[in-house]
């Protein structure tokens, strides 16, 4: 078992139930193949630095999980077929830090203080 991080970029013209479906789909894939989801982060709608396949923006979904190599193949196979995804990236880690969130939106109350 190893630790991995996986990020998906979906198209920007999706409704909220569709986004939740995608998030649930990949969560199920991990759990079905004997993996363990540690954390899911939604970074929200971000604009790209450069255009990717004629798209300017996209929704980011970020997974942190523990799994074998079978799940990685399964995720990769599914995300290549998937039409609503633009890009995906998996990174292997020896240790996961779940505390720091780089894309967290700041609360309004914190700004005032």
């Amino acid at each position, binding site marked *: 078992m190893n630790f991995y991080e996986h*990020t998906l*970029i979906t198209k920007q013209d999706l409704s909220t139930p569709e986004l939740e479906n995608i998030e649930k789909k990949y969560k199920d894939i991990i759990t079905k193949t004997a993996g363990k989801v540690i954390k899911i982060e939604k970074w929200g709608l971000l604009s*790209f*630095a450069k255009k*990717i396949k004629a798209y300017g923006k996209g929704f980011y979904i970020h997974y942190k999980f523990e799994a074998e190599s079978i799940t990685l193949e399964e995720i990769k196979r599914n995300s290549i077929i998937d039409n609503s995804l633009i890009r995906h990236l998996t990174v292997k880690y020896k240790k996961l830090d779940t505390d720091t969130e*780089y894309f967290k939106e700041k609360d309004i109350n914190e700004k005032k203080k």
Partner: protein
Amino acid sequence: MKRKNNKFNKRSPNPLNKLSLFQKSDSRFPKKCPLSGKDAPIIDYKNVKLLKRYVSDTDKIMPSRITSVSQNKQRKLTSEIKKAKILGLI
């Protein structure tokens, strides 16, 4: 350790003492690596704020002789910048 200390102390008192204009001055101060040592920032592809500092205007990776990043950390930086470019963050 002794040799390293000598390097820091070796400073000519006056730069005008040089024989010629193109002679290398001994007073060049060795700059420390900003990404190593205690409480250094984490190099990660999600930490876009940090990575943007080491990328030029035309999205090229800056050479370590300008930024004075150590060899080990520069190797790590390049791999993380390339990951961030795949996701369209930089």
